[in-house]
């Protein structure tokens, strides 16, 4: 599966300020096809901001983000079209409470791709089956547990048949007993070759699923290496310190 290195996402010298606060200070990162990159680091280090800059939920202050070679910051780029290649999963699920699970899943493909209702519903059922929630098709989100909500959110993102996925702490809002069911879904996705970036505090999961680790601290990438290497032999003191605290 790991063929020639195709660059899906290229981040070059990315800076992001919120007013006077410098959150990202010259971040460069490349994500290749079939990569599962774990982005880890202390709270407030800019992990979410980095992820959100990839699909322009935050507009970078300077620097470049290329997705499939397309400059996301260029004025003439169709951001809506580019976002359709990206599946994003949020910490607090963000399911639409005014729609059923079915409605949540078919909404975007129907609106953006003019797909027929029938083919959308077929795919929705397929994906819900995959995340083990086919029986919840006509349920409203309020009736689901946190773990179920997040699995629906993942299925909703997959409905757009994305080229890559961004996970921002997908299990941080979950009770411990529900974390596993969500991580299993993400693990399966990674195994199937989905390109992804995951912000996570789940170190065992990270070690087990990611092939690269990116350690972000105070808006700077302190380490960017293969997962095995990062855990067995962290280069910087900051990373060592961080690992000793979380492992």
């Amino acid at each position, binding site marked *: 599966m790991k063929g020639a290195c195709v660059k899906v996402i290229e981040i070059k010298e990315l800076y992001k300020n919120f007013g006077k606060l410098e959150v990202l200070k010259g971040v460069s990162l490349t994500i290749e096809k079939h990569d599962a990159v774990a982005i880890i680091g202390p709270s407030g280090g800019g992990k979410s901001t980095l992820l959100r800059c990839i*699909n322009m*939920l935050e507009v970078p202050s300077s620097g470049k983000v290329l997705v499939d070679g397309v400059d996301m910051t260029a004025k003439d780029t169709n951001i*809506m*079209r580019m*976002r*359709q290649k*990206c599946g*994003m999963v*949020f910490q*607090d699920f*963000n*399911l*639409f*409470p*005014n*729609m059923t699970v079915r409605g949540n899943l078919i*909404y*975007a493909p129907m*609106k*953006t791709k003019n797909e027929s209702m029938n083919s959308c519903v077929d795919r929705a059922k397929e994906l819900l089956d995959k995340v083990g929630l086919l029986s919840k098709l006509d349920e*409203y989100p*309020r009736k689901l547990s946190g773990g179920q909500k997040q699995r629906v*959110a993942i299925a*909703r*993102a997959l409905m*757009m048949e994305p080229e890559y996925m961004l996970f921002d702490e997908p299990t941080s809002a979950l009770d411990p007993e529900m974390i596993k069911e969500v991580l299993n879904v993400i693990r399966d996705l990674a195994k199937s070759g989905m390109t992804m970036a995951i912000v996570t505090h789940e170190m065992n999961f990270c070690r087990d699923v990611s092939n690269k680790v990116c350690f972000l601290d105070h808006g700077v990438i302190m380490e960017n290496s293969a997962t095995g290497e990062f855990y067995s032999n962290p280069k910087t003191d900051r990373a060592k310190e961080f690992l000793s605290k979380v492992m």
Partner: protein
Amino acid sequence: MKFAKILPYMGMFQNGVIMTLKYTALSLVLGIILGLLIGIVKLSDGKVCKIFKPVTYAFTAIFRGVPLMVMLYLVFYATPQVLGFPLSALGAGVAVFGLNTAAMTSEVFRAGIVSVPRGQTEAAIALGVQKRQAMMDIVIPQALKSILPAIVNESISLLKTTSLISVLGVADIMRTSNLVLAQTYTAFEPFIFAAVIYFILVYILTFFANMLERGLRKGD
């Protein structure tokens, strides 16, 4: 108590009810349309809207701070002095009540939309949906849950407030009771009757509001 005394005036009361409803309905329509527009200006980041933003907040502050009776006198008696032509009571009344409703509902619309978590819009646009589309399909349906009850409260308050128009001699429910008092030399019966009419009108409004609210509460 002799309610029989006011029986001959039922026709007048009927006209009074119609007059009250007319002022309420016209002011409500003006107030909601204008309130929605002002609410959008308050929310918008657009360049043109930004210029008008302070004006909209001043507008709401003024109507919060000045009694409507004073507004009504200002518009009905003082404005013609400046403009050089008289205003009808209907014009002045609907303007004052309508603008007041707009000032209040603009806040209702703004707060309702702001109360929907930002993550909802973000989730939709992250899926590649246009922001405006997400507003229509995701944000507004959720905002309505808090907006509609507040609009109903505003309508109820408006209905009762229109009784102020009686000071300009408009024969609404309130003024009719006054006229009946003058003709029958009895105060208790006509005013109790007016109170009952207002109460029933508000009750009917509330009933429909509750039905609507129940319909909206499907999702949660």
